[in-house]
């Protein structure tokens, strides 16, 4: 794909004093959201696109920081002048969701009531809570309606939820590699990940900050497990196969196969910077996500409240949220006579395909966005 990166970016912080009442019954009396913007908001404020992040994402979506040239945004390949999310045309907003660990208020933030980190006291947040918090950020930025709300995986679920909760504020929604709700298998994987964290002796009931420790072992296991579900069997086979680090078996339990080495590396890297409580919250947000619950499980009735034009995209090798799951959303939109296009992209990278640079995949997103009238 032609086009350039947005280059040097800065993150910003917005403080909100108005209490946010959460789906879980919890209340956040006040909170901060960190965010980044790329491009320029036009005079009519009609060219804004919200990019929602997935489980481990954050507000640093594109570009790099002046003092950290190697710290490149997680979806840099799709954003910038001449790229599908063209910053010469659109104003892009990315933020870190509530409960996160990259600067927005989350379990590792100080609870003003106690002066200590929130830890286990941080309330469970749901996708719809994020949408409400994001709407307040939109208000702050003067954005009445988004030209588009988009995201992959859990980010796509936020785009879907936006279109239902605030139909008048979403003109287009791009839902990539998502599902209308998790399957039993999806929840099962999430619970094994949570159990790894919850049973780590360093977890201390979620208040590990006070013990100057972190449940690194549990978080590492959770990430290793998650990582397996993000990749495809084919890709793992191609990339690692049964390759050994040394030429012969060692008949022991140290790293032998390359796939073991890769997963342990990914687990260690992730456990080094991510917050375990945030991981727990994000997986619960996924498990609870099911907008059709408000309509007795009738997704068609739920999607009937949306007014947006939709682009739904899935990936052929994604076994976490298969193409069939995306087609459930497509069917519900079609039953309401909504404008919807659906593309099943043949990419080999499993669920993680949504982050990859691919001419056809990016071409589809680009073509859809080009037809948006500002």
């Amino acid at each position: 794909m032609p086009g350039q990166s947005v280059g040097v970016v800065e993150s910003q912080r917005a403080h909100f004093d108005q209490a946010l009442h959460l789906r879980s019954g919890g209340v956040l009396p006040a909170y901060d959201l960190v965010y980044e913007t790329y491009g320029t908001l036009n005079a009519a404020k009609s060219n804004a696109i919200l990019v929602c992040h997935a489980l481990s994402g954050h507000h640093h979506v594109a570009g790099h920081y002046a003092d950290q040239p190697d710290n490149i945004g997680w979806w840099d390949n799709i954003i910038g002048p001449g790229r599908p999310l063209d910053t010469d045309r659109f104003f892009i907003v990315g933020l870190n969701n509530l409960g996160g660990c990259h600067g927005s208020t989350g379990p590792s933030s100080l609870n003003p009531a106690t002066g200590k980190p929130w830890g286990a006291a941080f309330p469970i947040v749901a996708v719809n809570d994020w949408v409400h918090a994001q709407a307040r950020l939109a208000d702050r930025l003067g954005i009445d309606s988004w030209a588009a709300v988009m995201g992959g995986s859990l980010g796509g679920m936020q785009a879907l939820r936006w279109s239902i909760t605030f139909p008048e504020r979403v003109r287009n929604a791009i839902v990539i590699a998502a599902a209308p709700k998790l399957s039993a298998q999806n929840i099962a994987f999430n619970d094994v990940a949570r159990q790894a964290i919850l049973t780590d002796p360093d977890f201390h009931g979620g208040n590990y900050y006070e013990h100057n420790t972190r449940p690194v072992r549990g978080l590492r296991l959770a990430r290793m497990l998650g990582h397996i579900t993000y990749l495809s069997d084919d890709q793992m086979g191609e990339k690692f196969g049964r390759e050994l680090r040394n030429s012969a078996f060692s008949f022991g339990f140290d790293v032998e196969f390359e796939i073991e080495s890769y997963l342990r590396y990914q687990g260690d890297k992730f456990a080094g910077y991510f917050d375990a409580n945030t991981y727990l919250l994000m997986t619960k947000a996924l498990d609870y996500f099911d907008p059709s619950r408000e309509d007795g499980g009738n997704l068609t009735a739920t999607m009937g409240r949306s007014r947006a034009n939709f682009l739904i995209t899935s990936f052929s090798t994604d076994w976490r949220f298969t193409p069939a799951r995306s087609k459930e959303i497509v069917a519900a939109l079609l039953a309401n006579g909504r404008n919807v296009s659906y593309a099943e992209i043949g990419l080999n990278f499993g669920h993680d395909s949504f982050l990859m640079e691919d001419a056809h995949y990016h071409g589809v997103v680009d073509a859809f966005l080009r037809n948006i009238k500002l």
Partner: protein
Amino acid sequence: MTHTLGRPDFDLIAAWIQPGHRVLDLGCGDGTLLKHLIETRGVQGWGVEIEDANILAAIRNGINVIQGNLEKGLDEFADQAFDHVVLSRTLQTVRHTEGILREMLRVGREAVVSFPNFAYWKNLRSVLDGRMPVSEDLPYQWYDSPNMRFFTLLDFEDLCNKMGVIIRERSVLDEEGNPVTNEVNFLGSLAVYRLTQNR
């Protein structure tokens, strides 16, 4: 005689479709027909396509397009969701002929089907000369043709009869796109049918 976008069947199809109708175009390609129907008849349109390049082209054309394989049915579409379901010059490429016709009449009130007539006299002459036919409406060599079902107007009407499908209207065109009214199975190169089903 000039025809819309060089496709004489498009004008016929457009004439059968009322403004505001919901139209599903199976094998919609880059969405040319749907775009024409949206612009000239003010319909609401969706297409189904299997090819990546056509998905991209249709989205670029601003057309709703769903990627899918017609051979696997139309599961994502509800019963009677559309006023018209169009299958333009595609039936001869589909293996599950009865299946797709039933699916069309399940999701749509009416089906519009166009296909090349293999009994067109020039095609017959070609076969008598010892060659598989290549024409305006059969523009492929035998070795690169996507066509897998070879049938005539009479064959198709027999199948409709067997399936209990009602033929509401039929238009037959010659190779230049002019209407044919006599000896249609012999003089017609392309047939366009408007089908429905008793409920």
